[in-house]
């Protein structure tokens, strides 16, 4: 129990202790940094590989078929087969493309997707960096993927790519606001931006999702997160039935795979962040902490895949209306409810904030009018 709990921390300490024997102090610091970096750089792509497998398997089950089952047992070697296929594919660059931008976009899109893992606490004492502005760092860095999507869509010189890129940015700019607003209650209650102290505030089963504001905050945050990583039902930037593949229409081979990788790693990061902020992170009984974190994150991932297997794509006006008319006012009022919960004494706050939450939910739901496109009047030439 004790060893499985801190196995990764113990391994790191052992490696550092080995090098400390004959190397000067400053190299040990650098080796310590390198170990964390290597762990993240390996963890990200491996997670991505098996998320592709999981997604195809689960969506297959939802659609009453088997999913991949040829390569290896249960198709577990399918991601490796895919990787070999992607690497050996011809890399096609359109003649009119802006060569530098077209090449840099898939490289840059992976960077924020990997960087955000550095502040996620994977277990007790297992955050690579305990930044005191960790949560803001996560939000700030994840916005940078927009720039890469832009570069890809503009550098391809393709109308479908450009349309996809513009959709992507409109969506990300809109959903970022309710997303940031929905984490404000967490900051308000814990009084810290550090991910580690946010988890520590929820230790012992006091998960924020069990409070009225936390429950709805988690829903708002998760929906915004799904929209941020362009997954169904928010996958307008790459809606394949409308604009081929959106911003990565002109990419093939490994460059396409990098876009794919960034998308899945961001999806996992959002799932992990939801688990950290609202579901107690690595807190849980019996099992070691890092396993709890993975279980919670994969539960979130499963919900995302479930969405994909169930829901059709939004229309663009529905997408915008959902963010601005429903999620944003609700996230704003949720801050007020969290303040009520924090200020009132213990038994009273649950009732008062619960009632306030219910009232707000009803008001926001009925105040946001059903959005239907304006009736067009056509003026014909005589």
């Amino acid at each position, binding site marked *: 129990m004790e060893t499985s709990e801190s196995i990764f921390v113990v391994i790191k300490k052992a490696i550092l202790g080995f090098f400390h024997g004959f190397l000067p102090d400053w190299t040990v610091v650098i080796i310590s940094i390198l170990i964390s970096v290597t762990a993240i750089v390996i963890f990200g792509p491996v997670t991505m590989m098996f998320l592709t497998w999981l997604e195809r398997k689960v969506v297959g089950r939802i659609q009453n078929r088997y999913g991949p089952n040829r390569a290896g047992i249960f198709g577990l070697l399918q991601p490796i087969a895919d990787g070999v296929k992607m690497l050996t594919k011809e890399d096609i660059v359109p003649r009119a493309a802006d060569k530098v931008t077209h090449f840099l976009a898939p490289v840059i899109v992976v960077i924020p997707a990997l960087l955000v893992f550095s502040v996620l606490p994977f277990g007790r004492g297992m955050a690579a960096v305990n930044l005191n502005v960790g949560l803001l760092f996560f939000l*700030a860095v994840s916005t*940078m993927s927009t720039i890469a999507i832009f570069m890809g869509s*503009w550098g391809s010189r393709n109308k479908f790519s450009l349309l996809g890129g513009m959709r992507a940015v409109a969506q*990300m700019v809109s959903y970022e606001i309710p997303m940031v607003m929905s984490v404000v209650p967490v900051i308000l209650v814990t009084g810290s931006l550090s991910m580690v102290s946010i988890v520590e505030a929820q230790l012992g089963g006091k998960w924020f999702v069990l409070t009225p504001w936390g429950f709805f905050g988690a829903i708002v945050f998760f929906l915004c997160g799904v929209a941020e990583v362009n997954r169904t039902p928010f996958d307008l930037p790459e809606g394949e039935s409308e604009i081929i593949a959106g911003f990565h229409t002109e990419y093939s081979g490994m460059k396409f795979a990098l876009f794919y990788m960034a998308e899945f790693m961001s999806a996992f990061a959002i799932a992990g962040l939801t688990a950290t902020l609202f579901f107690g992170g690595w807190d849980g009984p019996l099992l070691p902490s890092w396993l709890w974190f993975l279980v919670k994150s994969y539960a979130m991932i499963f919900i995302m895949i479930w969405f994909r297997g169930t829901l059709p794509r939004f229309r663009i006006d529905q997408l915008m209306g959902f963010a601005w008319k429903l999620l944003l006012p609700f996230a704003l009022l949720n801050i007020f409810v969290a303040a009520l919960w924090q200020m009132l004494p213990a038994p009273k706050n649950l009732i008062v904030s619960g009632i306030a939450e219910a009232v707000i939910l009803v008001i926001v739901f009925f105040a946001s009018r059903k959005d239907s496109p304006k009736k067009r009047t056509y003026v014909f030439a005589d």
Partner: protein
Amino acid sequence: MDVLHNLARLGFFAATLVTLAAAVMVVTLRNIFHCALALILVLLGVAATYISLKAEFFAVIQILLYVGAIMTLVIFAIMLTSRIGDKTVLQNNRQGLMSFSLLALFNAFFIGSVIKTSWHLNPAAMTANVDAGVLGAAFMNEYVFPFEIISVVLIVALVGAIILGRSDQ
């Protein structure tokens, strides 16, 4: 730990160098989209400088606001403006000498005033830990009046933007 200290210093100079090089690119590149990308690099370099000065909060806010929001808007404006991103536009005109001499004059004055100022260092402020909590408390207590005024200005701007952007009824 001397080596680490020097490495951190090297990082600071590297960030400064990248910032300056990207700043030159912003004004010399011919394609406006490339200029915008170079400007992003400048802003990231400034964020890196903040980090090396132990102001992580400012660095993160810099990325969140400038790279995440403002540059996204700039690029969006470029993409929405028809065909401006396709062309390679010469960025300088024939008034280079004139503006350069004016700028040199201004810079001479500016650098002179920087050198002349004696820069009193407040030891308490040097070691103060300026994190988000301290800033927030300062906004809500000492500087509440300017904070409120900025809030009002922002709300006016928001309402104005909504009125301007409203489709004709």
